[in-house]
């Protein structure tokens, strides 16, 4: 319906609620926004929220840039890459964070039950599946290896989608895989072993993803952004303190079966992002050559 509509259109209507489209990926991580919408945290603030699901950055970033979406959901490394490439986007509010508990995070490096690999340092020379190369997965796993006393340069990463990882691990096509929920539960259920919690190894309480908007909207309609941030923060807080509600809402927008939902390790949803963890991640990313230049977090958030 919005066609080539401009972001400014949404603000023009002071009388009615601003219609806001948010591009998200239909995974556990975005449960708070679904929950917040249901609880009326957005409509309270005069925001008519629509959630559009895409398969990642290829669809969401251009959508936000062109004003088709007002906000989008993305992992932090991708946002840092965008910043170093001067993509005109701004991070606005926390998305999802690691639990910070080794062995009990929502994402982990796993191996098959019978694998000789016992800990992160054994990954050297092995094939490890990540969902996207040169992104948060390989950077954080390298850190895990490093911290465990191994040689991170020897790890071979291959790109496989999360849903395909259990099969690839089972079939012996990879030696280890970085999986997140719900695939993590699937692997564990088949006897897979967690050998590292890579997010935890990067920083305590690592902020993993953020909601962002276009620089243009941030500049032209700070009020809308502010309302969105407030609504989002309320949603995050609500989600963080109501895991049962979260598990219920996950059942509505995903097709994860009930038993798995009940057993999922939920991530953390603090209302504020963790700046220190982002800096740590930025450093690692730079070390691994993910960025052309050093990411400037201030510019990303200003």
């Amino acid at each position, binding site marked *: 319906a*919005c066609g*080539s509509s401009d972001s400014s259109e949404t603000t023009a209507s002071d009388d009615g609620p601003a219609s806001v489209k948010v*591009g998200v*990926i*239909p*995974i556990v991580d975005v449960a708070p926004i679904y929950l917040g919408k249901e609880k009326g945290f957005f409509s309270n603030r005069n925001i008519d929220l629509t959630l559009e699901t895409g398969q990642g950055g290829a*669809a969401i970033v251009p959508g936000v840039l062109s004003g088709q979406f007002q906000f989008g959901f993305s992992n932090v490394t991708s946002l840092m890459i965008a910043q170093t490439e001067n993509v005109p986007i701004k991070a606005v509010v926390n998305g999802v964070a690691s639990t910070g508990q080794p062995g009990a995070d929502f994402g982990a490096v796993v191996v098959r039950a019978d694998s000789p690999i016992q800990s992160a340092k054994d990954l050297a020379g092995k094939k490890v599946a990540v969902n996207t190369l040169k992104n948060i997965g390989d950077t954080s796993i390298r850190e895990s290896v490093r911290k465990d006393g191994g040689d991170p340069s020897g790890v071979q990463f291959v790109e496989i*989608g999360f849903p395909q990882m259990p099969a690839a691990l089972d079939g012996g096509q990879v030696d280890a895989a970085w999986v997140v929920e719900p695939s993590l539960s699937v692997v564990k259920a088949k006897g897979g072993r967690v050998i590292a919690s890579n997010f935890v190894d990067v920083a305590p309480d690592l902020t993993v993803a953020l909601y962002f908007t276009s620089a243009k909207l941030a500049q032209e309609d700070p009020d809308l952004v502010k309302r969105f941030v407030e609504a989002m923060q309320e949603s995050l807080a609500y989600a963080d303190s109501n895991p049962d509600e979260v598990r219920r809402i996950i059942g509505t927008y995903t097709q994860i079966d009930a038993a798995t939902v009940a057993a999922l390790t939920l991530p953390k949803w603090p209302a504020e992002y963790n700046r220190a963890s982002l800096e740590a991640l930025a450093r690692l990313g730079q070390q691994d050559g993910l960025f052309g230049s050093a990411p400037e977090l201030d510019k990303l958030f200003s």
Partner: protein
Amino acid sequence: MTMSDSAGDGTTSAVAVPGALTASGVSPPRRRSGTTLGYGLAGLAVFFGVLELLPRVGVVSADYLPPTSRVVEALAAEVVEPAFWVAVSDTLTSWILGLAIATAAGIAAGVLISVVPHLRAVTASTIEFLRPIPSVALIPLAVLLYGTDLRSTLLLVVYASFWQVLIQVLYGVQDVDPVADDTARSYGLNRWARIRHVLWPTALPYVMTGVRLAAAVALVLAITAELIIGTPGLGSRIAVAQTSNAVPAMYALVAVTGLLGVLINVGVRLLERRVLSWHQSVRGEVVL
């Protein structure tokens, strides 16, 4: 003498008289389409039977490729949901629209390129350059222009299936029999009449193949676009099932896609029977 014999029984058997026009009473075609259906169903049964067996005998794990029976169960669960039917109709809408646009544009462009002198030589390099550009690489572009609108999907669908029709038309037009074309020209048929009565019927078998190719490509792209961009439809349902590790449900949706493909093909084949009844490929089989 034989003569009188034949004259004699000509009276009794009007049916046996040469060339008697009879309504297609005994219609062998109908019988044939019945057996065709039978063979087709048998083929599908074997295929799904193999898919049932593969995981059961342990060639692949049933967790990743569930046996047909489980997929059918999941399908049964899907079809009772209204959202499923909304998704099917969304997908079909973008498919039909996209295919119609691509077919019309492909045919028009193909005929134009072959009929206007030199146009073919001038456009050849550009066509060959544009064709291999994958629709998936155009996704950011589509989203940029149209967001998650239907038009985004349409852009990708049309871009991908247009070439299928175009190339077939170009080859089909080339197939015009020079004697037939000379005949048309010598009887003063103007260009439009020649396109309509000579060029088009000759190219039609190729075009039919092009439409069949494009129909599947359009379906594939409609689903892929929904899958990646998230426009509502079967594809986005597949995406959700995929990220949710709901394996049987995902295969159920994929099977729906495949069955749509089968249905589409049946439709095109029926159309072909009608419009190509004169062609060797169709009439050749009538005699068999």
